[in-house]
């Protein structure tokens, strides 16, 4: 029956022409091939986010008076509501984790080099958007931690010279974090960011399909020296089936985490209460948080936090444009970019752990 349907469609749309490239697509096979899976797993977790997000939308109410109660309702009254919400939260965190793993693996396997600069840039923009998803989604249950995390996060945006203040008012929907902020963040979270991510994801995937998988320079050199070592795997069905297995493991992990460690709801936000002791941002912002905490209030004549925030912004911009700093002289630049990658990774891990344990 499927064959008949396919024939019917193919007669009208010439599907064979569309599918043909996938029949010939191959994936290089070597000892580092496993890292290729992380982009796909991130994509899968994003699909889980879209799906569970749509389900949560059926009950969630984006206003200061109702948001907390509606999430409480989802968690306690709606059948499997606790599961859907926990999967949404866990999947968000795992997606950010796998996106970071994917980014660092691309960095260390040198996959960002010419001709894949645009793939790197679109991927980095996707990473920033995913963090934006995390930041905006965190506020939606309207609990105390989220309220102050949003106050601090938007105030940080406000420290940027010249455009900072208008940007902060734009993000908050007013001078302070209020119900207006919640409504805006909801809009960003369910409409603006999904639209941007969909466009960038299409570009990112198109580039990956068009250019194929990158082979790490050392493996490439070994293959060039001895072509009989070259190994490739067909994308369809060999690689795709392996990827599907990884997705299956991912959904199993998600289900287990959501069932064993359901996500907390916390205490409803009160704009006129002190920030609770021990307040910290989500783990993926901890390294920035700890950095800001360590910078003194005045560095020479500058405000410490302005310097810190500008520093983080410049570092992000530099990372976005990283492939363009790679010159054609392989030995020299490649070493320093790898060195920088190792430094960034170690810095992020150390600062995150320090931020986690510090008072």
């Amino acid at each position, binding site marked *: 029956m499927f064959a008949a349907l396919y024939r019917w469609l193919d007669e009208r749309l010439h599907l064979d022409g569309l599918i043909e490239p996938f029949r010939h697509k191959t994936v290089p096979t070597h000892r580092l091939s496993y890292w290729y899976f992380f982009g796909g797993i991130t994509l899968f977790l994003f699909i889980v986010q879209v799906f569970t997000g749509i389900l949560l939308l059926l009950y969630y109410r984006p206003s200061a008076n109702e948001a907390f109660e509606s999430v409480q309702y989802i968690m306690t009254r709606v059948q499997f509501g606790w599961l859907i919400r926990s999967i949404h939260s866990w999947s968000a965190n795992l997606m950010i984790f796998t996106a970071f793993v994917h980014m660092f693996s691309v960095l260390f396997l040198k996959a960002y080099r010419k001709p894949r600069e645009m793939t790197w840039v679109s991927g980095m923009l996707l990473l920033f958007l995913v963090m934006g998803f995390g930041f905006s989604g965190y506020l939606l249950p309207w609990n105390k931690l989220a309220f102050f995390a949003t106050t601090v996060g938007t105030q940080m945006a406000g420290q940027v010279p010249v455009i900072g203040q208008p940007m902060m008012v734009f993000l908050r929907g007013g001078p302070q974090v209020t119900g207006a902020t919640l409504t805006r963040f909801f809009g960003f979270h369910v409409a603006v960011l999904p639209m941007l991510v969909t466009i960038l994801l299409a570009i990112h995937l198109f580039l990956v399909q068009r250019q194929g998988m990158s082979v790490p320079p050392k493996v490439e050199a070994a293959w060039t020296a001895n072509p009989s070592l070259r190994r490739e795997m067909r994308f369809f069905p060999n690689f795709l089936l392996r990827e599907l297995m990884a997705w299956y493991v991912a959904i199993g992990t998600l289900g287990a985490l959501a069932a064993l460690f359901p996500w907390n709801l916390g205490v409803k936000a009160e704009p006129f209460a*002190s920030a609770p002791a021990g307040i910290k941002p989500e783990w993926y912002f901890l390294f920035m948080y700890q950095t800001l905490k360590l910078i003194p209030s005045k560095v020479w004549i500058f405000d410490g936090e302005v310097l810190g925030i500008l520093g983080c912004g410049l570092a992000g911009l530099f990372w976005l444009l990283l492939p363009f700093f790679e010159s054609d002289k392989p030995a020299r630049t490649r070493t320093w970019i790898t060195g920088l990658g190792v430094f960034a990774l170690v810095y992020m891990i150390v600062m995150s752990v320090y931020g986690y344990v510090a008072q």
Partner: protein
Amino acid sequence: MCADHIPQTRTTRRHAIEIFLGGGVLASLASFLYPVLRFLVPPPVADLGGDEVVAAKVGDLKPNSGEIFRFGSRPGLLILQSDGTYRALSATCTHLGCTVQYRADLRQIWCPCHNGIYDLSGRNVSGPPPRPLDAFDVHLRGDEIVVSRKREA
């Protein structure tokens, strides 16, 4: 000579039309975009509460404790010191805007977000806060503790 001139006139004419058309399209795009940009800017909220507010009643606070009160659209911190005197300050941390609290054990004002510490007059004494907290005037009216903005001398 004539032949030389004709193409040039044509180019100029075409060029002028391009400017008018392009300018018109750009102007119309700007006119579409302007209302959208203005829509994104939230309308100003009136700061209700003015310059004076009843923060608490006498007896609400124990000595050596603090309480958050609402001062217009922002939080304020009222402290009853051990010697029985009141102090009132803005509760918005000057670092990144968290709401501070009184720490009875330290007899200082503490911001839990980035561990900023102020003394009881609002001076930033340690941690990242760059400026002191704004101090308010406190006076008693019957059994009401009234907090008002400091009047410029």
